[in-house]
């Protein structure tokens, strides 16, 4: 300290702390991968806070350690330290710094929250001040064949009331209906995903890059729908509809976790969301139509030889344990009826 002026030491420490903080803010690697359009928004805010937090922590912690060493009591010294009761400019300074950080973070948070769609839950694009029936909205979903509602046998009533809580349209989607709307029901200890037309699944399948809306409800106790890779979470409340609207940005399989204590097996209440490419999604959707909405009357009345292989196989799919995805794959692979002659059940052979 005698040789080097303390101002240079302080400057060096400041530069070092700044560099380290910036680096930590960008490279902490604590977040899982980003799979929704909201995720980068949240992560950028988090990274900024990690950066500021690292800087503050290093400054305070560094001061503590330096003071601990520099101002330790020397042996035999029983006198007191300096009589300093305070310093108004210094106190004003370290009140102003956190205040400025708080103002900045407050404004930044509001902006991120708005861009995530947090300001517009319930904006379904169609006269949002009315109680919109989501079924009417989902019928317009472009990639799905329209299915008469009376053929559906939903486990859960698909009509969700107008949700006031959660995440709705982001500023770009304002006034537009979502491309796909799925009713999500939490119950001890499972999630049910109720698609338009009565398709019910235990895993969520959605297309990447499309505007998806989940209408959340709970049958028994409070659950909370969380996909860590989407950075989105919303409680599913009994008696109060909530929603999550988002665009999944990256195909893949991600966990769906219940985040609100819902009973003894709360920890086991996990499933997954499969984000498909649009083509995969269309295929998956078609397979659900075959596997989950078979028209028994048609199957019996029509001559089997008139049916294509998937149509013929559909009623057997459950018996032989062929998954709908595998079935879809078969259809794709065999291009029609070439397989039929190998099946003993076929009356033609």
């Amino acid at each position, binding site marked *: 300290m005698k040789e080097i002026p303390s101002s240079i030491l302080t400057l060096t420490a400041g530069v070092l702390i700044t560099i380290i903080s910036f680096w930590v803010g960008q490279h902490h690697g*604590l*977040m*899982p991968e980003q799979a929704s359009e909201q995720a980068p*928004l*949240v992560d950028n*805010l*988090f990274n900024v*806070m*990690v950066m500021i937090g690292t800087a503050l*922590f290093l400054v*305070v*912690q560094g*001061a*503590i350690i330096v*003071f601990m060493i520099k*101002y*330790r009591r*020397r042996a035999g010294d*029983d*006198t007191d*330290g*300096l*009589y300093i*009761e*305070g*310093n108004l400019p*210094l*106190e004003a300074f*370290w*009140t102003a710094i*956190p*205040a400025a950080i708080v103002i900045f*973070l*407050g404004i930044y*948070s*509001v902006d*991120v*929250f708005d861009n*995530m769609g947090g300001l517009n*839950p319930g904006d379904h694009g169609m006269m949002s001040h009315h109680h919109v029936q989501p079924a009417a909205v989902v019928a317009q979903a472009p990639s799905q064949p329209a299915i008469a509602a009376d053929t559906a046998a939903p486990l859960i009533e698909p009509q969700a009331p107008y949700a006031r*809580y959660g995440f709705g349209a982001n500023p770009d989607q304002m006034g537009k209906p979502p491309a796909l709307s799925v009713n999500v029901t939490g119950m001890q200890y499972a999630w049910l995903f109720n698609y338009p037309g009565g398709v019910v699944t235990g895993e969520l399948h959605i297309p990447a890059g499309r505007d998806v809306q989940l209408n959340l409800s709970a049958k028994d*106790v*409070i659950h909370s729908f*969380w996909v860590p890779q989407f*950075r*989105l*979470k919303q409680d599913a*409340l*009994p008696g*109060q509809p909530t929603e999550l609207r988002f665009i999944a940005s990256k195909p893949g399989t991600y966990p769906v*976790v219940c*985040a*609100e*204590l*819902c*009973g*003894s097996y*709360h*920890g086991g209440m*996990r499933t997954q969301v499969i984000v498909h490419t649009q083509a995969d999604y269309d295929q998956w959707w078609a397979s659900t139509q075959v596997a989950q909405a078979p028209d028994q009357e048609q199957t019996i009345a029509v001559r089997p030889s008139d049916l294509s292989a998937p149509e013929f196989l559909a009623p057997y799919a459950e018996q032989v344990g062929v998954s709908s995805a595998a079935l879809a794959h078969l259809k794709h692979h065999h291009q029609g009826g070439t397989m039929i002659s190998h099946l003993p059940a076929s009356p033609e052979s």
Partner: protein
Amino acid sequence: MTPAQLPVNTPLADPGASPPPQGWKWYDYFTFNVDHKVIGIQYLVTSFFFYLIGGAMAVAMRTELATPDSDFIDPTLYNAFMTNHGTIMIFLWIVPSAIGGFGNFLVPLMIGARDMAFPKLNAIAFWLNPPAGALLMASFFFGGAQSGWTSYPPLSEITANVAQSMWILAIVMVGTSSILGALNFVITILFMRIPSMRLDQSPLFCWAMLATSLLALLSTPVLAIGLLLLLFDINFGTSFFKPDAGGNVVLYQHLFWFYSHPAVYLMILPIFGIMSEVFPVYSRKPIFGYKAIAYSSMAICLVGLFVWVHHMFTSGTPPWMRLFFTISTLIVGIPTGVKIFGWVATMWGGKIRYTTSMLFAIGFLTMFVFGGMTGVTMGTAPVDIHVHDTYYVVGHFHYVLFGGSVFGLYAGIYHWFPKMTGRLLNEPLGWVHFALTFIGSNLTFLPMHQLGLQGMPRRVAMYDPQFTSVNQLCTIGAFILAASVIPFTINVVWSWSRGAVAGDNPWRALTLEWTTSSPPLIENWEVLPVLTHGPYDYGLNNSSPENLEPVAGSTSPS
């Protein structure tokens, strides 16, 4: 009493009355005793007993979490442990030891009063605690409450009804105790200071207790309302929170958190008070910015009443609420920062003595600053949406409640144990205790942040196997933490009877409690002290306290 403090006027005792006892016997501590010092020690010892029970539950849970599957304890029992661990640590350890224990023991001694304003009320407030604790323990015969310390309906209304009802009654009892105690503190601090002590000359611990008590008075009744409505729903057929009968599940969350967020400040404000006493004594320096620290306690008390919805950002809360409470939550960081900077600046230019108390105080600073940083990240709605109800939150609140409150309690115990018992705690054992606690707590709670961010929810008995190794790290930390209690317990038990005799003022501190004997006389002083210097006037003319002995009749230097 040193000769310099010999009485100059006649003692107040009525000569006709039977002579008061010279000191309390051990069995007096098991009776309905109205002496604030007895009550303070009763609170501390009782709450430490419950700390061990709550800690044992934590160890059982961490053992379960060493593997992803549920294989050590039944998930139902896990949830009962999880619920009661939180409940016990909050309502039967930190709150009663910080407020009931240190508050009762110290406040009258620090302001020169002979007792609290309402001694009998004070004793009643304490004696509500043991039955409440017993009720919680007994609830395990009925499965134990399993719906978390938050007890959100509808889960709490359909799970273990008898145990849940016992849980509610226990919390209402300790809540009542808290209200009675708070009333007592406010009156005592405002009206029972010795005449020469203005409020802004009182020790900062008293300011902290004043803020704590006001907060408890304003918020605790709201919790009682929420819990009683829940009790009615469970047992008497009402449907305040039953959605299928028109009730509202979110209403409970508001009632609960209107108390339970301020409860966080109930658990940390008294600790802030302890820090403001410990740092000046061992740094041999005046507290840096007395007024800033005093007023920031009041600011935290005020702002703390308006941040509760940040626990409900993912619940049924409209957008404006999520944003309003984001901003108000961030604001709490400002007064808290003022305090932290004040303590760090107190160390600057001091002559720091590394007693165990000071080590825990510095440990507190480190842990609390970190916990404060993660708290700011969670205070913003966008990030909280991701991390809410995850292990990130568990990591955060253990940094502020264990690294903050419990470190602070330990600092307080090492500092005032000589005053309470007349004997010093063993310092080398204290250093071992500190080292184990510091390593154990960081090893347990630091990895939890990563778990939460990566996708592990809290309150789970089983989890995704990808989190196994990090969880095992936490479990090892928990075992070290459990071991850290052993040297402390041995230290306290041994030193209480055989420790080195402390003398009246072993730390050469300047607050009034050190002007009486150790342990203090039954009515604290034979003659009430007169204030001759401020509570933190270290280094004034660079003199040691021997030159600052109170002189009767002199006026305050400030």
